């Protein structure tokens, strides 16, 4: 019966509003008003289990809608930006307890609707205590300080790389390349965290019409390409100078850069999503064969994001111990590929080692994905 209602949802939305008011929670779609004036109207009681609320915004401004436990403030479901005059389904898993609808109009203060008793044997979603910008600010400050320190290391090491190239000692330059690159990889600059500057420093030749020969190909991988493909010191001087300058500009500009409070949670899984997509596929390597070192640095970078979030996640994320176990496992597998001062190149990994690593990182990102949904900024009603 549920199914029939849901399939017909758009067509009967209007009718359902009228019907549901008298039929109570029939388990199909129950019409609930959201908005400043009538927040939560239409929802009186419910049986536990999976329910669909047809939230209707009769006001003139968009509304963010949540289903909350009004005494504890935990959030069970949310819908952002329900437009004026629109009806949208909000699916929620309700265990026995007391709930309310939270409405936050874009143009005004939040309102909490009437309390709703839910009873019955069904189980529900896990409520999450929302995090506000204020809650996350201390974590952002700690993270920012660590990035600042990391940028200092990065500048020093990139200067050393530049100096080695300038001196014409390419053995020394090859030795200096990895520490500098790892200093960057540890910053966890996944998915545009450092904007265009990040692409200049660590971009791949993808998207450039002439690939590795494109004048736009720059940064660590441009220098790597030359160092491991027999380029002359003279030809690498420009790219190494430019890299050092880009890194310096990143450091100098960073104090003015914004880190959004919600970015921390996103970065917690995006760093390793990035590693899975670009590193473990071999897409970034330009000859140094140090991909696994980069992944190990990405794991460190993930830890660096999680550390300041930890106090906030402790009672919000039951997966935290398994995330820690997963990080430890990934580190262990990666460290085993560093022998006698050398990292195993990705393509020399045996099938089993490769699969274990893919599995460990793959499993980790599955779990880390919840960090992002839990540690996002929520404005509580």
């Amino acid at each position, binding site marked *: 019966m549920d199914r029939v209602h849901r399939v017909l949802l758009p067509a009967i939305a209007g009718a359902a509003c009228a019907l549901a008011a008298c039929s109570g929670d029939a388990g199909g779609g129950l019409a609930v008003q959201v908005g400043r004036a009538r927040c939560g109207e239409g929802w009186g009681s419910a049986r536990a289990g999976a329910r669909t609320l047809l939230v209707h915004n009769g006001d003139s401004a968009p509304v963010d809608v949540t289903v909350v436990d009004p005494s504890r403030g935990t959030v069970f479901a949310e819908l952002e930006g329900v437009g004026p005059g629109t009806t949208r389904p909000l699916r929620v898993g309700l265990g026995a307890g007391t709930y309310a609808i939270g409405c936050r109009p874009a143009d005004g203060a939040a309102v909490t609707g009437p309390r709703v008793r839910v009873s019955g044997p069904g189980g529900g979603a896990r409520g999450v205590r929302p995090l506000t910008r204020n809650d996350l600010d201390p974590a952002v400050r700690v993270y920012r300080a660590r990035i600042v320190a990391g940028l200092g290391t990065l500048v020093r090491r990139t200067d050393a790389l530049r100096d080695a190239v300038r001196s014409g000692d390419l053995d020394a330059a090859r030795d200096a390349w990895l520490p500098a690159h790892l200093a960057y990889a540890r910053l966890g600059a996944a998915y545009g965290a450092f904007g265009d500057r990040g692409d200049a420093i660590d971009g791949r030749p993808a998207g450039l019409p002439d690939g590795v020969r494109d004048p736009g190909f720059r940064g660590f991988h441009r220098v790597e390409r030359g160092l491991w493909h027999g380029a002359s010191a003279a030809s690498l001087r420009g790219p190494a100078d430019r890299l050092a300058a880009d890194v310096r500009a990143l450091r100098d500009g960073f104090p003015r850069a914004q880190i959004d409070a919600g970015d921390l949670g996103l970065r917690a899984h995006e760093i390793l999503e990035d590693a899975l997509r670009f590193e473990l596929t071999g897409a970034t390597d330009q000859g140094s064969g140090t991909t696994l070192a980069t992944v190990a640095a990405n794991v460190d970078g993930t830890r660096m994001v999680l550390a300041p979030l930890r106090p906030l996640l402790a009672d919000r994320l039951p*997966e935290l111990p398994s995330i820690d176990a997963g990080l430890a496992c990934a580190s262990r597998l990666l460290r085993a590929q560093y022998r006698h001062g050398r990292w195993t190149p990705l393509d020399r990994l045996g099938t089993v080692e490769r699969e274990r690593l893919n599995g460990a990182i793959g499993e980790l990102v599955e779990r880390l994905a919840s960090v992002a949904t839990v540690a996002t900024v929520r404005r509580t009603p």
Partner: protein
Amino acid sequence: MTAAAGPGRRTFLRGALAAGVAGTVGRATPAPASRFHGVHQAGILDAPRPRAMLAAFDVIAATRAELTDLFRAVTGRARALTGGGAPPEVGVAGPPPDSGVLGPDVPAGGLTVTAAVGASLFDDRFGLASLRPARLTRMRTFPNDDLDPSWCHGDLLLGFAAPDEDTVLHALRDVCRHTRGAMQVRWRIGGFTSRPRPAGASRNLMGFKDGVANPDVTRAAVRDRLVWAARDGSEPGWTAGGTYQVVRLIRMLVEFWDRIALTEQERIFGRARDTGAPLDGTHETDVPRYSADPIGEVIPLTSHIRLANPRVPETEDSRVLRRAWNYDRGTDGAGNLDMGLLFTCFQQDPKRQFEAVQERLKDEPLTDYISPFGGGYFFALPGVVNASDHLGRALLA
């Protein structure tokens, strides 16, 4: 992979936590009757569904306990997927637990999930060596093979089959999502069966009707003699209800094939291309009368159907239950289309059955036009009998 104690041990089971929610919310509405539970697994006796995916996995779980968790997880997902129903609502505690590919209320979609284990699972990793099914070996290399190791073998084989491709891919994604830390895809290949053209058995990509003559598994005696694991004491007890599954990934050199005369094509198979009838018959179901054609003037002695199944009492015991799909996977370096047959068969004894047939087919004329490049030997596990049972329970007990 992780410490043996605490939540870490099950770290790969992403679903383990969510399962608690699923177990409650997901069952708020009664699930439609599922064919998942039974003494035998689904997807064996069933006629091939139109779409299939065979995925071979390498198990990366480190301990027997983790392996057991993996089998539980696969069972749990297979049960949920084949039963259908709304996925659990996790709210803001995580991303949506379902990909949404099949819409909000996941339909069962006629899906079957069939799990089989390879000989490599019985190596020294999990202490299972003494429990290896007596007739389970690593797939041999046959004289006409051109095997690519990366397309062969595997610890675990999952077969997904359904009327629709989205159902199959949804299931594959779901299972992988819940088991990443415990197994990794070694190889996988999708296949399809063609609708009857114009009637009868479906055609392979050489244009011939395929799988016309299968043993009649509606008869229990046939199943017990040809399909299900032997119950004469020669097999470990846990194998009861299981069956051996042979997989052969066979490329068909379709361009070459298309350039040879129809008469030659028909003499290679022993059947007429248009009707599917044996060359001495009229209808595809006609039984060839080899005794009336002892020197192969009508149906050549080297034809595929005659070698595969000579229809004499001595070879009756070597018949297999054939379940095949066509595949299509791109283009080779010479510009030829890479397509062919995803051949699988179920049997009681791969040596007595599949290998005997294969040996009779050695150097048959058809081998010039096909090239087996992958596959493996597996043992399809006994069925999951009820909600508290799981795949491989008797093996891992």
